[in-house]
């Protein structure tokens, strides 16, 4: 792997939430490094706090203790792909995608060109003028991905981006994201609760435990791409991760 350097470093990140039954610890001293241009998958059971972790990295939530450090030129700016698409219903596809640049005050012609490039890349050419309500779930998430890339940031965080899609569309989108990645190098942190998705996509997989989450184990799938979920190595790794996950529950 061409992991040239550390991009994001988390040190002892902890987080508690107040709820009806008092304080619930969600993240327990999580430390991890994200390397440049890698596809890092954060895998964990439902409700384990994976999304919270991602929100903390994106500065949409704050940690109770611990630090998040961005190295190199990045000052914490990330592209973010949301589970529920989070598109602006009153904006068409083009305007949704160019929004990050518009907020930064980029000229109209420039941001149009960039947005069109990524709309084409996610296969939505011809749908620029459509509104989100007219698109299917898979297409909406393509818009979400195009928007994250348009932001121009070299780190893209994806929070269970295919969690709301049906199985068929989900497989399509997994291939799509790998295709996009082969065209444009980015550092990707991808959160999921789906073991097969993690193995299919990840250069590296970090397995989180149930709440309060800790990093349980790291896997580096030594599988040739395109990976096949029917290959024996794939299934062996899947069984191994499943067992470790079951132990944690």
């Amino acid at each position, binding site marked *: 792997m061409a992991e040239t350097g550390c991009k994001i470093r988390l040190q002892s990140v902890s987080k508690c939430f107040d709820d009806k039954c008092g304080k619930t610890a969600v993240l327990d001293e999580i430390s991890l490094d994200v390397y440049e241009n890698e596809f890092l998958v954060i895998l964990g059971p439902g409700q384990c706090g994976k999304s919270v972790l991602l929100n903390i990295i*994106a500065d*949409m939530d704050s940690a109770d203790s611990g630090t998040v450090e961005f190295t190199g030129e990045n000052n914490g700016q990330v592209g973010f792909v949301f589970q529920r698409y989070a598109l602006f219903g009153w904006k068409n596809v083009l305007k949704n995608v160019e*929004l990050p640049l518009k907020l930064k005050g980029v000229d109209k012609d420039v941001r149009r060109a960039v947005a069109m490039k990524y709309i084409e890349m996610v296969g939505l050419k011809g749908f620029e003028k459509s509104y989100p309500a007219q698109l299917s779930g898979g297409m909406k998430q393509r818009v979400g991905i195009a928007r994250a890339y348009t932001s121009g940031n070299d780190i893209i965080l994806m929070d269970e981006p295919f969690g709301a899609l049906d199985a068929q569309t989900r497989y399509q989108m997994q291939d799509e994201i790998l295709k996009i990645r082969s065209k444009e190098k980015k550092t990707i942190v991808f959160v999921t609760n789906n073991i097969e998705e993690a193995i299919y996509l990840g250069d590296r997989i970090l397995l989180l435990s149930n709440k309060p989450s800790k990093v349980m184990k790291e896997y580096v799938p030594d599988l040739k791409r395109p990976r096949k979920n029917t290959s024996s190595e794939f299934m062996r790794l899947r069984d191994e991760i499943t067992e470790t996950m079951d132990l944690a529950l």
Partner: protein
Amino acid sequence: MYNEKKRSAWMKMLLNVSGLAMFFGIWELIVDIGLVSEKKLVAPSAVFMTFIDKLTNVVPDGNTIIAHTLTSLQLVLIGFLLSCLIGVPLGLLMGFFKPAEYFFTPIFEIVRPIPPLAWIPIVIVALGIGIEAEAFIIFVAAFVPCVINSYTGIQATNKTLLDVAKTAGATNAQLFFKVGIPSALPMVFTGIKVSFGSAWATLVAAEMIASTVGLGFMIQQGRNAVRPDIVILGMSVIGLIGAALTGLLSILEKKALPWRDLK
């Protein structure tokens, strides 16, 4: 599919028309067969004749129906537009910025339950007798729904959309104008429509303040002159114009929010 749509559109129209026809038919009938005395209730046909007559005749209230209608429209529009101009921004600010909410809510909650009519004496003292005082009464009636709907609408802004804009580096002003206000617009429009209804419905009350012209005044005069046809004509014009303008607002809403009816 297309035919079915067309058929249901016809069906809707047919039911609309027959509802109206039944209402006016029964009304006409109970007067014509003498179920109710003509001194108490006049038939719709007689009201229509009075309408034709009042287009040119200034008796008994000193003005034609056109003059009354225009005066009332002007009065309502002033009060209504003023309430939108002040109420909508106030509601949006209160719903989006906590300090504004804490600052304005107590006073708003106290003013809110006071009925518009209760303002009349103090308004006459403060603003005198005239269009200012009348417009103020209408303003008070229209103001509350504007504020409440804008407030509720912007408060319901999707938190994730705010996060999207925040991660893209949006400032507070950008969050307010680019995310909050567009998400609130459907509710703002609802508020504006409700406001208009309240404004128009308060017309007669507002024109109780020493008016000499206006639909509310015409109704009062009709009552004094024992002319039920004029009273009912005034009511009918208020009803018809109210319905027409509400319809106009709905069309405006559709034009302004084209994404709402997509599927």
